[in-house]
């Protein structure tokens, strides 16, 4: 029997080609986007993992004030822990626009360089330049780079896994390769630079390590406690390492889940068509039942077309995506942000299965659930088509306004389609809100960073100057860690004087009650009066505080304290400080400087976010608009089709085109207008709740408040799209002639 009915499947497909074509295109597009986005994320994730393996990525790193003695290194090695010196200098290039380069010597065994072009230097006047910095400054193999009076030839462009995310400081929010890059010199050239006296700052004494079997980070940390440890950073806590992979976790999760939600929505939309067919063919089904045809036979028949369409659509989407046609565009933002080689786009096996299984299976499940009850009726009830207009009959409507009553009845009759339209609008808006929240966050970051950074330079000092330089504000900064949603972030406790002109903060004389930055409060969900704990991982001490006040400060996770209270808490002398804020560049001993952060770097870094996210924001906005339009068009069309007989009938009565439109089409305006009023704020609210989890690995605040005009504009766009669809569907109303009612239904 299925063989005969199969012929009907193809005829149905032909008859409703536009409907299934649009849905097929949507599913193809959905799979194409999911496979491209998730596939790109997987390609980057697996690619960076392979590179980490190939280049022998560190298990962690630590910085000390004085170099480890040979015997210390021997002891560590005896502990079956491989340790490698990876000292570096930060050097501000002559042209400020060129930013700072971090100068390393070539690595021996840990964090080896992976050259994407050229090769490692063999001569003293050669170097490998980090890929992102080279790109931003348009430098290629064979070009030259001059610093500290020496001109070097670029022998290779490369990446290292310990700078996957090329952050200058681990506490930085964003990478900015216009202002920061790495260079790798030969050991001799590095030695020459060290001895040249041209260094602007003290050498950073950083060691990287690889743990032997059965060893853990604590073993090493315990040993190093006796040394002057500046920092100890395990691989998992280092935001530079696997930055790409961590960034892509969200893409993978969101992509997969968004795809599933989308397929359920389309499955539901399809089920509306199927239910429409079943209701129209109710008496035929009843007749077939009366002859002994079973529900199972018909269920199989009715879901076969949706399954075939969704399967083929999914397969086409997969094959299109597998060509990698859009992968470079999707991955481009990552290649323009992270320091990684370009990987060949590959679709993992699970995505192949996902693409060909998810759309048909979800469609089948949704359809079986929805249409099962429709087919569950008795043969007699189907022959008599008894339950038609059940929804409308239940509701008693008062009032004499015929048009209003008619529209409500029509809406109740078409409740299933109405739900699908509102559900489609809701899901489309959810997708849209991902892009909106990204945009609002990025633009707020750019705006807030500019407004909140009042100093021009921040000098983090290794050794404080004997006297505080003129026109500067001194402060005491100490970095602790705090975790949220599985990610650990640097939190800076900043001791400041009450009259510090760069911070509008009055911490008060308390060690317990502190002022925190708004970014910190947003990220960790802290409110005034709440207590929280941060951890000093080097000393393994926890500090508990209470939020006295939240100050608008977006550029980092800060805890503001009175400097004297902080000195007291940390056991420092009454005049200790390690940070200087200034309006101008300071002339201080480079050896005493740990790092310099300029306002320009901060503001530039913030604007990078918006540039990076714009392509994704466009894709999401367009995709959500298409989803909304297609679902609205299909559902409104099915509502009209279901009323074909009635429309013809009222035309026979003498109703004019405008009146028919008023009765059968314009009532949807209220569905859209009222639906949008509900789902617009609801989708924003839900996305605001979900968004922090999507960017749980990003060290920034969560200012995602949207202005009122945004809601007004979005609402206006929704109504505008409705009117476009309405205009298109008027033609459909015209297609039903009064003669329709006279035709034999069969």
């Amino acid at each position: 029997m299925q063989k005969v009915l199969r012929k009907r499947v193809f005829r149905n497909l032909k008859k409703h080609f536009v409907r299934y074509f649009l849905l097929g295109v949507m599913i193809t597009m959905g799979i194409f986007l999911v496979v491209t986005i998730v596939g790109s994320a997987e390609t980057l994730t697996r690619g960076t993992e392979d590179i980490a393996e190939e280049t022998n990525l560190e298990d962690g790193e630590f910085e000390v004030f004085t170099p480890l003695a040979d015997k210390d290194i021997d002891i560590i090695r005896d502990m079956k822990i491989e340790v490698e010196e990876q000292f570096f200098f930060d050097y501000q290039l002559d042209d400020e626009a060129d930013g700072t380069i971090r100068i390393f010597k070539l690595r021996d065994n840990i964090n080896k360089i992976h050259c994407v072009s050229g090769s490692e230097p063999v001569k003293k006047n050669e170097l490998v330049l980090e890929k992102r910095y080279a790109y931003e400054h348009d430098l290629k193999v064979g070009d030259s780079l001059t610093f500290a009076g020496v001109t070097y030839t670029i022998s290779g462009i490369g990446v290292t896994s310990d700078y996957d995310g090329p952050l200058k400081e681990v506490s930085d929010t964003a990478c900015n390769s216009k202002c920061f890059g790495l260079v790798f010199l030969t050991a001799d050239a590095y030695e020459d630079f060290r001895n040249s006296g041209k260094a602007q700052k003290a050498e950073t004494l950083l060691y990287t390590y690889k743990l032997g079997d059965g060893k853990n980070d604590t073993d090493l940390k315990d040993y190093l406690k006796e040394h002057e440890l500046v920092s100890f950073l395990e691989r998992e806590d280092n935001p530079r390492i696997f930055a790409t992979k961590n960034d892509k976790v969200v893409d993978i999760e969101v992509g997969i889940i968004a795809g599933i939600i989308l397929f359920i929505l389309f499955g539901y939309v399809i089920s509306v068509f199927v239910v429409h067919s079943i209701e129209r063919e109710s008496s035929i089904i009843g007749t077939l039942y009366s002859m002994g045809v079973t529900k199972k036979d018909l269920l199989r028949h009715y879901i076969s077309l949706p399954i075939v369409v969704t399967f083929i659509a999914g397969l086409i989407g997969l094959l299109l995506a597998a060509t990698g046609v859009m992968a470079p565009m999707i991955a481009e933002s990552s290649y323009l942000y992270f320091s990684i080689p370009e990987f060949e786009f590959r679709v993992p096996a699970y995505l192949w299965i996902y693409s060909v299984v998810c759309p048909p299976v979800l469609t089948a499940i949704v359809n079986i659930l929805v249409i099962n009850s429709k087919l569950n009726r008795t043969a007699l009830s189907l022959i008599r088509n008894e339950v038609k207009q059940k929804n409308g009959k239940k509701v008693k409507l008062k009032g004499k306004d015929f048009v209003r009553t008619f529209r409500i009845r029509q809406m109740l009759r078409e409740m299933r389609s109405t739900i699908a339209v509102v559900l489609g609008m809701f899901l489309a808006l959810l997708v849209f809100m991902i892009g909106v929240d990204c945009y609002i966050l990025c633009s707020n970051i750019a705006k807030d960073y500019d407004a909140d950074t009042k100093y021009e330079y921040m000098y983090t000092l290794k050794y404080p100057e004997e006297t505080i330089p003129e026109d500067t504000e001194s402060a005491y900064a100490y970095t602790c860690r705090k975790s949220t949603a599985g990610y650990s972030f640097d939190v800076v406790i900043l001791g400041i004087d009450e009259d510090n002109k760069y911070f509008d903060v009055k911490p008060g004389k308390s060690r317990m009650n502190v002022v925190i930055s708004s970014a910190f409060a947003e990220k960790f969900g802290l409110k005034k009066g709440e207590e929280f704990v941060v951890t000093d991982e080097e000393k393994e001490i926890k500090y508990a505080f209470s939020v006295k006040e939240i100050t608008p400060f977006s550029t980092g996770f800060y805890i503001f304290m009175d400097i004297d209270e902080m000195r007291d808490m940390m056991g420092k002398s009454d005049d200790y400080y390690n940070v200087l804020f200034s309006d101008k560049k300071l002339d201080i001993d480079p050896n005493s400087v740990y790092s310099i952060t300029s306002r320009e770097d901060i503001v530039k870094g913030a604007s990078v976010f918006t540039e990076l996210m714009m392509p994704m924001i466009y894709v999401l906005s367009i995709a959500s608009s298409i989803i909304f339009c297609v679902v609205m068009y299909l559902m409104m069309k099915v509502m009209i089709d279901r009323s074909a007989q009635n429309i013809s009938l009222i035309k026979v009565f003498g109703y004019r085109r405008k009146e028919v439109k008023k009765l059968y089409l314009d009532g949807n305006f209220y569905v859209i207008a009222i639906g949008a009023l509900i789902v617009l704020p609801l989708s924003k609210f839900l996305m605001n709740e979900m968004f922090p989890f999507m960017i749980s690995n990003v060290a920034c605040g969560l200012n995602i408040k949207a202005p009122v005009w945004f809601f007004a504009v979005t609402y206006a766009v929704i109504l505008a799209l409705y009117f476009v669809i309405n205009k298109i569907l008027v033609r459909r109303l015209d297609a039903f002639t009064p003669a329709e009612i006279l035709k034999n239904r069969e």
Partner: protein
Amino acid sequence: MYVEVSNVKKSYGEGGSYVEVLKGVFVGVEQGEMCVIQGTSGSGKSTLLNCIGGLDDIDSGSCKIDGLEIAGLKKDALSDYRRDTLGFIFQFYNLVPNLTVRENIEVCRFLTKNPLDMDELLTTLGLKEHADKFPSQLSGGQQQRTAIARALIKNPKLLLCDEPTGALDSNTSRDILVLLETINKKYGTTMLIVTHNNSIKNMVHRVIYLKDGLISKEYTNSERIPARELEDL
């Protein structure tokens, strides 16, 4: 008796809307007989047919078809009973609009292991030249013939017809009745025909009148008039 209906009662609704449609009906039809059930609107004739067809369950009594008690049968068993034993013809043909005549018939052909020969059936029913047409390309009579062919293809032992000529003109009705007569003779199919049409009673073996849910009259025709000679159809 091939069809044995004993003291069947059937009611609908509750409280104020309670209606007892069948109040204790007894019917017996021999194998191979053509039987007409007549009565006024609301007398219970369609309900009786639906109960015999297992489309409606009975409140009490017994309904045996070829010895099988169908009262109380579960859904699957009822489905099997209909599949193996019954053919149904309704006033409205209920053909699948986007299947051709042949395909509409084939839908039910697969319900049995021993279907009738498709071409022979198409010829018998005068549908041979219309086999590849869609229902919308057929006249009412041709559509009803297709519906009959669909019911007959699985070679049912019992054919239940609910107003088979109700939507047809006089000449077409006659054609359909001739056809039913031919089938009855050719395949020995037992037939129960519910109809308002008074002339049909003359062509069948047995006539049953229903009134207010009870059999008011029942008789067998000693002489039958061939369908093609029926008047006032």
